[in-house]
């Protein structure tokens, strides 16, 4: 087995002081499982490198079974992991930055620090050693040699198809959660924003009184600004709200699909409102006058205008769904990309890409594309049908 250079890093397990139940884990948790009670949740913030090693995937089920607890793993950078724990959003941290860890304990955020492992970086390959790196002591040199001989080549596209065709259960779960989160977001968002957009759009029909005009311009500008809001900023704001130290901390919504829906709603509401507003506003003034001249009340006229704008409303929903299902920055922060819990297509793609699993990332990308296409196909069909009918 070829071995390259050794690195030495300490991985440290720290206990957050804000979770006094930790002692309880040690003393009272019995290996016996008690299914009648809801599972206690243990949230671990760790570094990407630990998580990516796959070690936790192996240990977690054993730990969960033994202590009858649900382990949720947030994999982020060391600084962010410690920050999350400081805010009370994680029970345990597993990181490697000794000085920061010691400061963390010294400042009273953690109660216990223990060194749990060191990591050796080892290159493992077939016995035939096609790149001829056996005996090398320099990792960079070894990788360059492998790259040069092309020995590490694999086909991500082939891998992607294999994952999709075999209906990999994790891919299915991720896809389902993506649809659930985006679908709920669009449904709730439409229920709130279509009436709002219609109201603002219809307002523009009314008189040119300066105050109404001013309110109109102001609300439109606000909506248009929010339409261009970076999702990451929204995610950060929602995170700070829902964090255990934030104003809505007691709701315990951080790192749940509900938090992801909340963040996406903030992004989707301006989109649906804005597009609805434009669609309703662009309905010919003549339609409104036609309704009035046929004896419609103001309310009936508004409904008629809305019905004429229905293709525009459909566009609003399509745009919102597209934005929601392809969004990544915001839901990464508030969802935490927790495996089997809050991992969705986009966050999984980022994660797998970082890991170098381009095949899996591609597979998920194709699923994402396929759903975006299916939804657009259905809605476009409706639009075409709506015009001809």
């Amino acid at each position, binding site marked *: 087995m070829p071995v390259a250079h050794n690195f030495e890093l300490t991985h440290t397990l720290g206990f957050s002081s804000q979770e006094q139940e930790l002692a309880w884990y040690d003393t009272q948790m019995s290996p016996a499982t008690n299914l009648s009670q809801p599972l206690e949740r243990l949230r671990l913030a760790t570094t990407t490198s630990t998580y990516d090693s796959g070690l936790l995937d192996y240990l977690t089920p054993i730990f969960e079974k033994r202590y009858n607890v649900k382990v949720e793993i947030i994999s982020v950078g060391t600084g962010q992991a410690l920050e999350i724990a400081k805010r009370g959003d994680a029970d345990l941290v597993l990181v490697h930055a000794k000085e920061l860890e010691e400061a963390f304990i010294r400042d009273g955020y953690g109660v216990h620090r223990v060194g749990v492992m060191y990591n050796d970086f080892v290159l493992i390959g077939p016995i035939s050693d096609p790149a001829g790196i056996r005996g090398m002591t320099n990792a960079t040199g070894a990788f360059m040699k492998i790259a040069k001989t092309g020995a590490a080549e694999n086909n991500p596209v082939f891998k992607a198809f294999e994952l999709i065709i075999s209906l990999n259960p994790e891919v299915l779960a991720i896809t389902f959660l993506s649809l659930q989160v985006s679908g709920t977001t669009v449904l709730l968002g439409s229920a709130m924003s279509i009436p709002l957009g219609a109201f603002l759009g219809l307002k523009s029909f009314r008189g040119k009184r300066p105050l109404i005009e001013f309110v109109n311009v102001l609300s439109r500008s606000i909506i248009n600004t929010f339409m261009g809001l970076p999702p990451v900023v929204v995610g950060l704001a929602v995170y700070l709200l829902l964090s255990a130290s934030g104003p809505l901390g007691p709701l315990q919504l951080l790192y749940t699909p509900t938090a992801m829906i909340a963040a996406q709603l903030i992004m989707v509401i301006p989109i649906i409102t804005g597009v609805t507003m434009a669609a309703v506003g662009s309905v010919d003034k003549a339609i409104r006058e036609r309704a009035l001249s*046929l*004896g419609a009340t*103001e309310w009936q006229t508004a409904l*008629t205008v809305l019905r004429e704008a229905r293709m525009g409303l459909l566009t609003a929903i399509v745009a919102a769904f597209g934005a929601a299902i392809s969004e990544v920055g915001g839901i990464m922060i508030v969802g935490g990309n927790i495996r089997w819990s809050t991992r969705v297509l986009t966050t999984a793609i980022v994660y797998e890409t970082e890991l170098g699993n381009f095949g899996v990332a591609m597979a998920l990308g194709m699923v994402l594309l396929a759903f975006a296409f299916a939804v657009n196909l259905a809605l476009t069909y409706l639009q075409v049908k709506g015009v001809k009918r």
Partner: protein
Amino acid sequence: MPLIEVQNLCKEYSGKKVLKDISLRVQSGEIFAVIGPNGAGKTTLLRLLALLDEPSSGAISFDGARVDYFAKSRLALRRRMGMVFQQTVLFNMSVFDNVAYGLEIRGEDRRSIEKKVKETLELVQLVGFERRNALSLSGGEAQRVALAQSLVIEPELLLLDEPTANLDPRNVSIIEEVLSWVNRERKVTLVMTTHNMSQAENLAKRVGLLIDGKIEGIGTAQEVFGAPSKQLMDFAKLENVFSGNSIILEEGTSLIDISDGVQIEAAVRKSGRVTVFVRPEDIILSEKPMISSARNVFKGRVVGILDLGPLVKIRVDAGKEFVVQITKRSFNDMRLNIGSDAFLTFKASSVQVV
């Protein structure tokens, strides 16, 4: 008793006086036509009568009561009248749903709606179109649906803004037939605008000549068009109106001598003193004489050019002055200038005789 009484009505749009001190009465059961050139204020007058706009000053009385503009009474009055716009406006729904609209918003029951829509579609000769989307119809069919929309609610007053403008003769005659039928059989009062003199003469009992926001004459078509007034001459300059003596030719057409050596042939049989009218868009302008079946060809000289954006109006002196309307593209292609020679060609059937 007059159904509508208009007193000293004025309307301004952003400082521009569109209607100036209009007073007129329309009797119940009458057909009243407002005739005038484009931009005279015809549409504005109709919109005020339809209660879509409020006057700047003056008053409208409907059925003896002065109109106020509070939402409730306005709605109640609006529900007693129908309006057909010049630009056909239909909802993106089926023909049936379009016609049923006025009944549905009045909360009529399904069976009565179906019966009334069916009857009305028969009236405008659109049976079988129920399930078609209204936006897929031709211009003439669409305008008949718009008429059906306004008729199905059984209005006492029907306001029509150039209801047959830009339609082909078949659709024009269907609409004109429907209009005279509802007036005769259902006693619906009609107020219509038009710039077509013969339509005004054929349909309306009385005509009001509206020029530049002012009523310049009210009476029968003969009275209004027969009396040579300065205002009628202004209208004539814009719309090719001439008067002269007509004789019936052997072929069954008439030849009208409008003096200054110009004789116009018209596809009607009428003799004596008449007024003729040729729409500027019905005259073909060419640099060389055209070989065609058209009976009227005159040589003239360009004396005026008026740029109207996509359209250009050209005044040609051919003994009498004619106004011709062509598109900007044709105008650019022909490279016309003041003083250029030009030929005017139009069919005897394009000549309207009153």
